[in-house]
């Protein structure tokens, strides 16, 4: 791995909910002691199902949500612990692309105004040429500048979202399911574009997705999350999963090839409530390989040659 750009240590987020006149507040741990390192120029994928905490993790890293515990360091600057004013200056170095290209653009502003926003926020001058250049970088015609978001398709809007994120030439970009709201045909276009931009601008990506197939295609390393915790880190896209949950995820994604058709041993049981986690491994209740130890103690994430897994009985 190259020189580390992002180092995350023991990141934890507990949400308190409920808590009214008659209800006692309940706490839910959305993200639990996550350690993560992303090297400069790397694409790291974070994959998991809804409710696994991957989107919360993304927002914690950019401090769009304040972490309960843990340290975040980006390129030598400790992000956790700096004040709001300093944090806002640091935001030039990081950016985020959001899942929903429909609500991520303010309907009242033209594309040109939307793309000028990052500059305006930091009091920087912005020119017509700069806007045209940004549009060109995401393969949109300069004439798009005068349009409103509702006049554009989902794929075009997501290109605008990407152009806005890259406006101030950040080093680090979080991509939060950037293609999940788009047609598959458009998804591939956006992935191609992201790959080209990474090359062109020397970017580092954290790619959040529910689609293991897509993550394995696009990412250098893959972090698998289940119920707020990292259960496995695959050192490369081809690595064979050792955690039963990763295996189940992989079996559940269908290749576009009828010959690869298979009988799936479906996961039994339901995802436990994050308010009321069972002791031991959170996956034990659905796991066919669970042993006695899994139900009483949490398996630690242990690394071997870059491949880390949190399981007492790995594959």
């Amino acid at each position, binding site marked *: 791995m190259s020189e580390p750009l992002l180092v995350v240590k023991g990141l934890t987020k507990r949400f308190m909910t409920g808590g009214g006149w008659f209800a006692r507040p309940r706490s839910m741990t959305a993200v639990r002691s996550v350690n993560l390192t992303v090297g400069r120029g790397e694409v790291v994928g974070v994959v998991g199902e809804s409710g696994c905490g991957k989107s919360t993790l993304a927002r914690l890293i950019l401090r769009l949500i304040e972490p309960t515990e843990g340290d975040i360091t980006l390129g030598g600057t400790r992000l956790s612990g700096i004040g709001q004013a300093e944090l806002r*200056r640091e935001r030039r170095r990081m950016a*985020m692309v*959001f899942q929903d290209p429909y609500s991520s653009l303010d309907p009242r502003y033209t594309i040109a105004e939307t793309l000028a926003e*990052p500059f305006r926020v930091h009091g920087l001058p912005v020119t017509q040429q700069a806007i045209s250049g940004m549009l060109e970088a995401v393969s949109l015609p300069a004439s798009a500048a005068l349009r409103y978001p509702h006049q554009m398709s989902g794929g075009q809007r997501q290109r605008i979202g990407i152009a806005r994120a890259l406006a101030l030439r950040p080093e680090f970009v979080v991509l939060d399911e950037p293609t999940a709201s788009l047609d598959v045909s458009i998804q591939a276009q956006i992935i191609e574009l992201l790959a080209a931009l990474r090359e062109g601008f020397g970017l580092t990506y954290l790619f959040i997705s529910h689609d293991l197939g897509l993550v394995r295609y696009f990412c250098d390393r893959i972090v698998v999350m289940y119920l707020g915790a990292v259960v496995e880190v695959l050192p490369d896209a081809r690595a064979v999963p050792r955690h039963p949950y990763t295996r189940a995820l992989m079996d559940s994604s269908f290749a576009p090839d009828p010959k690869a058709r298979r009988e799936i041993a479906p996961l039994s049981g339901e995802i436990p409530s994050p308010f009321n986690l069972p002791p031991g491994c959170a996956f034990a209740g659905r796991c066919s390989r669970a042993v006695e130890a899994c139900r009483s103690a949490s398996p630690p994430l242990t690394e071997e040659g870059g491949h880390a897994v949190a399981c007492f009985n790995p594959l």
Partner: protein
Amino acid sequence: MTAPSPVSSALPGGLGVLRAAFGRPSGAIAGGWLVLIVLGAIFAPLLTPYAYDAQVLKEAFQPPSLAHPLGTDEFGRDLLTRMLYGARTSLSVSSVSILISVAAGMTLGAAAGYFGGFFDRAVTAVADLTWSFPEILIALILVAIIGPGVSGTMAAIAVAYLAQFARLTRAQIMTLKAETYVEAARSLGAGHAHILFRHLIPNALAPVLVSAMLATGDAIILEATLGFFGLGAQPPTPSWGSMMSSGSALLFKAPWIIVFPGLAVATTVIAINLFGDALIAALDIRDKLGSKP
């Protein structure tokens, strides 16, 4: 089939919305009437040969005639003239007080909705409290404190409608706050002022302005009511409310003195409501307005 078509008509701007509102029959009639009233109020001195305070006692209690199309009052003053000047008072007092109310209500509501916490709870509690009293009661209490007259009336109306705008703005801001473009602005390093003034308030504006338009109609009634009780604009300044008040004693002797100002209030308020409805339809924001009738 659910995806919207990639290219559709441009977002209607201010003029487009007005044109759409005037495009409906009810909107056109109501809007036309309002324009007429406003023009009449502005150009009152040019439209009538009389002065609103010129007493000609020998011409008192004249029924409508060619010389005095709406008749004269107990002091022989031309009623049409007083109606036109009265429109100045009614319209300006009600719209200026609603403007003050909207400005203050939006500020409070936006701050409460955006920052939340203790401030929000305080604003919500006070707004709920004032909302549980009829507007007229609040207005009467305030006039009693400040004293009768135009400024007292304006303050009373402004405070009476404050809660409505604060609550509506707060609800709007709370919904808009969750939009991804707000989070996107934060991720770019935007501060509170940028988010509030560039994203939240512009998007919350349309429903608040329409509701302000409708409230202006209510404010005209409130102003007339205060005038009727003698708490509004003081004589000899004419207002529709005080004209009705002086006419009420003469209901059987000279009914035109109370009927014409009453008709003016009624038609203006109905026109404002109809035009407000047309605006709501043109802006397509029916679902965003609260349920307060």
